[in-house]
């Protein structure tokens, strides 16, 4: 028989407001096995934990139930408390009477009754708990960073600095990501390339970092500390180690009409190309969809002009297999498509552009060499209208926009408006906003400067329609403060398109078994306390793949993720989860049902000798679970026809006891 202690937490008034905690601790006192029951204001506080520790010692407890907040919040805390007092951590069960009781019910009597039942179920379970000792597994001391934007770069550099090898996998031919496309950065207005490209060079030169560019992750197996990953290095038809990046081929290639994705299609590149001058690795790549040689075998100019002999038309995709201890997702974001917002005429006029296109237009390395011109006729625009929140904060229909605030648009729009007025004082600049959101260091001051020093017209209201008429864009908008409908004849309209996670994130999340929210952003293990970890152990999050972020925030989160990875890689061994499956060999009939459903290959069959009642021995084939590989899902326990397979911590008997307690 267990000796169980029950600890009911008030959580201030969070629980005590709707649950009579005194009544709960009284009622649970009489449950089978319970020898001690109390309640306290904050069980998770030092004083609360002391109550637990003392009770464990004083009443020689063999098990305990804490009626408190969700186990996702403080189960770990109370397990540590128990261990500190000499009680096995796995003899602790939590009855969730906050998130699943006091917070969802309003009536004191109802809340109290439910809390008692939840407490009873937990007690019934603890009665059948057994002490568990976690196993250990080794750690592969190498990290994988997926995505080579500023987030991935920063994470990789920090991990490498700590002395661990890191691999970056980037789908594009170069690292650098979105930041490489930007002109200036807010709120200091330093040039993006000036601060990013030295970091890219650092990555290239760091001995601990390998870059797999033009590559993608195709398979992830294993678990924290022991991931097996397959990376597909796509054929770029150029030998990376031979190419010197001289760029002669990109000048001689006769196929000149390929839309240049780096400039968002605003100019053209060749079929063989280097995305931009500071690309890392600085190696040419052949676009197989555009190259005449690859399509019909007629050309070969690049091979002729390459003095280094780096061109290889016969190159094949290569699969690289590597082991990693930790994986960081840094897949970033993209602006959403403007197809569903054609009231702004993005698809009807070349002079309606997105903010990222505006960045390229004002970038000295961009398609217009930094001269602000209208894409349609190359003329200088005299009236520019910026529209904020295009597709952000849009809850009307899911296919159209995003319900969340994209966070970065207010600031970059202020930057665009300010820089335009600075360079071209003859240009009138209007910004239509719903709210100007500038929470950040020196952010609001920056926005106010745009208004007060640079004379940008900020108008509270939205644009309803952009009508291309002649060479003007007729902008129909509302000015809510003046209570007027405005009609502005603009030369250029810039849309602050909402941002969304990169499309590669969803399949990657499936491979990593990392969870995502409804917007396809990765979810964090805890929104406040564990913001850079995925709930899946060993998977970390860096940058905008977790939520919209600006550069300073991305870099801090990237470094935070790196710190978490370093903390993991520093360990020689990891303690595993003891809640794993185990087979009762006497009951196992060797049918292989469990082996077939195990997603991890944790179950193997062994031949084992058994002594029979008649004192003979017989060799039987029985299941054996590798506790280091088993993740404890329990699929095998249900598949087992003879009831031999069970799960530590979630044994069939324990769950049935909970069912019984609830249904009583």
């Amino acid at each position, binding site marked *: 028989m267990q000796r169980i202690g029950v600890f009911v937490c008030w959580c201030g008034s969070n629980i005590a407001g709707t649950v009579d905690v005194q009544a709960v601790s009284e009622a649970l006192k009489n449950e089978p096995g319970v020898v001690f029951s109390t309640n306290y204001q904050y069980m998770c506080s030092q004083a609360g934990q002391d109550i637990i520790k003392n009770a464990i010692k004083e009443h020689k407890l063999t098990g305990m139930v804490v009626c408190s907040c*969700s*186990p*996702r919040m403080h189960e770990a805390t109370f397990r540590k408390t128990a261990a500190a007092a000499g009680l096995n951590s796995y003899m602790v069960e939590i009855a*969730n009477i*906050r*998130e*699943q*009781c006091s*917070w*969802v*019910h*309003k009536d004191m009597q*109802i*809340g109290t*009754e*439910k809390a008692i*039942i*939840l407490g009873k*179920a937990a007690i019934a379970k603890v009665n059948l708990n057994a002490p568990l000792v976690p196993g250990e597994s080794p750690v592969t001391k190498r990290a994988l960073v997926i995505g080579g934007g500023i987030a991935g770069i920063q994470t990789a550099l920090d991990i490498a600095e700590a002395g661990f090898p890191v691999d970056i996998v980037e789908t594009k031919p170069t690292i650098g990501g979105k930041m490489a496309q930007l002109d200036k950065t807010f709120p200091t207005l330093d040039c993006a390339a000036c601060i990013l490209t030295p970091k890219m060079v650092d990555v290239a030169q760091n001995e601990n970092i390998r870059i797999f560019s033009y590559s993608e992750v195709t398979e992830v197996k294993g678990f924290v500390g022991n991931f097996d990953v397959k990376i597909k290095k796509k054929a770029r038809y150029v030998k990376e180690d031979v190419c010197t990046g001289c760029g002669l081929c990109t000048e001689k290639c006769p196929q000149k009409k390929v839309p240049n994705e780096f400039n968002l299609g605003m100019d053209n590149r060749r079929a063989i190309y280097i995305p931009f001058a500071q690309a890392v690795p600085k190696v040419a790549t052949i676009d197989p969809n555009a190259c005449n040689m690859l399509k019909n075998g007629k050309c070969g100019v690049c091979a002729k002009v390459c003095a280094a002999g780096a061109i290889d038309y016969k190159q094949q995709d290569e699969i690289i297999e590597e082991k990693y201890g930790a994986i960081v997702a840094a897949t970033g974001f993209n602006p959403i498509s403007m197809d569903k917002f054609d009231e702004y005429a993005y698809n009807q006029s070349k002079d309606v552009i997105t903010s990222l296109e505006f960045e390229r237009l004002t970038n000295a390395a961009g398609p217009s060499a930094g001269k602000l011109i209208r894409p349609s006729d190359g003329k200088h625009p005299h009236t520019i209208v910026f529209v904020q929140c295009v597709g952000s904060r849009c809850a009307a229909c899911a296919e159209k926009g995003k319900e969340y605030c994209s966070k970065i648009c207010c600031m970059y729009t202020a930057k665009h408006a300010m820089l335009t007025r600075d360079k071209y004082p003859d240009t009138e600049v209007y910004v239509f906003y719903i709210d100007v959101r500038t929470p950040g260091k020196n952010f609001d001051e920056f926005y106010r400067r745009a208004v007060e020093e640079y004379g940008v017209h900020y108008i509270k209201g939205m644009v309803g329609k952009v009508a291309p008429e002649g060479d003007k864009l007729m902008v129909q908008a509302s000015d809510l403060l003046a209570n007027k409908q405005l009609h502005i004849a603009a030369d250029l309209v810039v849309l602050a398109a909402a941002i969304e996670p990169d499309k590669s994130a969803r399949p990657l*999340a*499936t491979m990593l*078994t990392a*969870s*995502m*929210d*409804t917007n396809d952003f990765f*979810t964090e293990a805890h929104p406040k306390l564990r913001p850079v970890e995925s*709930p*899946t152990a060993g998977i970390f999050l860096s940058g905008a793949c977790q939520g919209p972020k600006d550069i300073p925030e991305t870099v801090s989160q990237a470094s935070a993720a790196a710190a978490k990875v370093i903390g993991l890689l520093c360990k020689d061994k990891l303690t595993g989860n003891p*809640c794993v499956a185990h087979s009762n060999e006497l009951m196992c009939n060797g049918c292989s049902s469990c082996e077939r*459903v195990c*997603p991890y290959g944790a179950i193997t069959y062994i031949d084992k000798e058994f002594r029979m009642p008649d004192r003979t021995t017989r060799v039987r084939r029985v299941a054996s679970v590798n506790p280091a590989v088993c*993740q*404890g*899902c*329990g*699929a095998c*326990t*249900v*598949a087992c026809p003879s009831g031999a397979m069970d*799960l530590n911590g*979630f044994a*069939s008997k324990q*769950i*049935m006891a*909970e*069912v*019984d307690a*609830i*249904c*009583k």
Partner: protein
Amino acid sequence: MQVKGEYKPLIVAFCCNWCSYAGADLAGNNRLNYPDNVKIIKVPCSCRVNPMFVLRAFQRGADGVILCGCHPGDCHYTSGNYYTRRRMALLFSMLNYLGIEKERTRVEWVSAAEGAKFAATMNEFTEAVAALGENKRLEDLRCKK
């Protein structure tokens, strides 16, 4: 709406640790009400739920049993929810054969981000079960005191 008098159906909800249990927590965080007769049992994955547990609940007087797991493709254990879906489809059809209305059982996908969906699902399921009235078919009278 069709709750007659004081009758409240007893609902047992099995929630997987990674998605639905977190979804239930989120419903709590957002203070979204759902009936108190819903009692949640945490399992590591919906595939840990043995059909026996469902039968046991009915035997012991539950009026409805709901299983909640991660959305297809999002299972923390890759494929557990697919097993659940197949197993429960079989079980439910058998229950139907025994004369237990299939509306008393359900498998739902609730992600960690879907607190609102969790609460809405529980409200709706409780209402649907309440409309069927008390479940007596499988109840083991020996269990009654």
